[in-house]
């Protein structure tokens, strides 16, 4: 079943067409890889879908609803979470506080109260709510086995842990769809290996994953489906085996990599 679909999605920056008429499809339950050379428009595509930036034209459908041009906070509440290529943690907050932020709309909001009532309730029951958020955040840290760093400032954590923490924060919101922008960038081989287990864990939660990655071994190993971008255009999509054989892809990307 299609969980997310973009139709003719285009984003221009001045003269540069970063994303050009892209039809991108994400199937529920699969791990989808998004690959392409530097500057191909992968991050830009993520930004359009997650509402960080608005598309020039085209449309985006998530879970049967159109989300084109909605603000990021609304999209995230509909069930799309993400991490960033250059990690965007709350650096001056502790690890556990970072995950607490990810729980923002999971605890303290109910469909039976309007915004104002919710605010008053959160204000009056602040400490009870805090304890609940805190213990849920700790559960997420334990899930990724980084709870021993709970009280450390995010900026002081090792690089690999920061990446995991960002994923934990994103997952805390209970998304249906998770976008990971180069999660293995800057990781050593051991950390990359560990990341594969992390992705398996996320998959076991029933979360659909889309990941941008340059590490071909990683992509071919963990993705069920791959889409390839080049100069903002989609040049191929299919299973890892199909992509490996695809002429256009080899020319644009893999050929250069394997030399």
């Amino acid at each position: 079943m299609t969980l997310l679909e973009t139709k003719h999605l285009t984003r221009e920056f001045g003269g540069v067409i970063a994303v050009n008429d892209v039809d991108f499809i994400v199937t529920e339950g699969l791990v989808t890889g998004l690959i392409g050379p530097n500057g191909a428009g992968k991050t830009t595509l993520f930004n359009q879908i997650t509402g960080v930036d608005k598309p020039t034209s085209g449309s985006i459908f998530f879970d049967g609803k159109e989300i084109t041009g909605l603000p990021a906070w609304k999209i995230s509440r509909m069930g799309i979470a993400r991490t960033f290529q250059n990690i965007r943690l709350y650096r001056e907050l502790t690890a556990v506080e970072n995950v607490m932020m990810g729980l923002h709309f999971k605890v303290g909001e109910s469909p039976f109260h309007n915004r104002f009532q919710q605010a008053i309730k959160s204000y009056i029951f602040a400490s009870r709510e805090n304890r609940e958020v805190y213990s849920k955040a700790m559960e997420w840290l334990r899930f990724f086995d980084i709870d021993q760093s709970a009280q450390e400032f995010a900026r002081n954590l090792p690089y690999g842990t920061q990446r995991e923490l960002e994923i934990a924060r994103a997952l805390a919101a209970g998304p249906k769809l998770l976008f990971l922008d180069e999660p293995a960038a800057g990781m050593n081989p051991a950390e990359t290996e560990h990341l594969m287990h992390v992705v398996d864990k996320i998959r076991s939660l029933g979360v659909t994953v889309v990941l941008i990655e340059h590490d071909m071994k990683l992509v071919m190993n963990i993705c069920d489906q791959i889409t390839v971008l080049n100069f903002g255009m989609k040049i191929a999509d299919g299973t890892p085996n199909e992509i490996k054989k695809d002429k256009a892809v080899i020319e644009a990307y893999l050929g250069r990599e394997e030399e």
Partner: protein
Amino acid sequence: MLNFFQLILIYSGVYAMMAIGQNCITGYTGMLSLCHAGFFCIGSYATAIMCKTMGLSFWLSLPVAAIAAGIIGFLIGVPTLRLKGDYLCIATLGLGEIIRNVATNINPVGYNSIPRVTLFGYQFASRNKLAFIVLIWVFVLIFYLLFQRLAHSRIGRAMTAVREDEVAAASNGINVTAYKIISFVLGAAVGGVAGCFQTAYTLTVQPASYTFMVSVMVLCTVVLGGMGNGKAVILGAFIIQFISYFPQLTGLTNVIPAQAKQIIFGLILVVMMIWRPQGLLGRDKFRYGDPRTFSERVSDTFRRKGKGGAV
């Protein structure tokens, strides 16, 4: 000398209240706004007009001042809060001055001999400083507790996220603009209430006392104490008022020029920004009221020791 010491206690109460508001805006949410003098002005005028011209009670002017300052805060906030850093600072600075100019145009000479505050038949005379100290500090305590709770609630957490990284906050489902506006309006409202107490003590209101310098002093108070830390901000208010009244306190008014304090405030801002941006007291380690249970706290302590004391 005791006299000036009492005066410092009164004014540090008024500034502590303003600083609590500024802290909500700058400390919690990270918006560099410079128009607290404007909100202060609105509160002072509200009390002056209501008590003097309309003959109403001071206590009635408190909520009116808070609401009026809040509404003006909302009107200023909606167009300007999309601006970042320096731009927001300049825009709010301009709007703060506009408030003062409007006040000047309403009544250029200000108000004099405003009726005294009475409570259960007791009259707060300006001569009786002790009574004022109690009155103002009771309210500082109330606002301190209210805002401390705000900081430690879900709303405060969202504000912190906005301060730390707006893009990440939005991706966590936080409505950045809404929280900025909430924070600005609440901060403005306390600024207004501080104005009421200023009027209640001095019993006069002059547009000239709500200049840009007041906003700088309030910002200075917050930066000096520690942004986002409620206790620190109150400490900051003491220090700033102490510096302000230092010449009178020591009887050196002839030696130390009045402009000296402006230079000192400027220096404090610069020095703190460079060497200790977190302020004298820094931030609370557990901003969210240490949500850990006792046993978690104990086990965290031991675990940290086991690792060789790394925090």
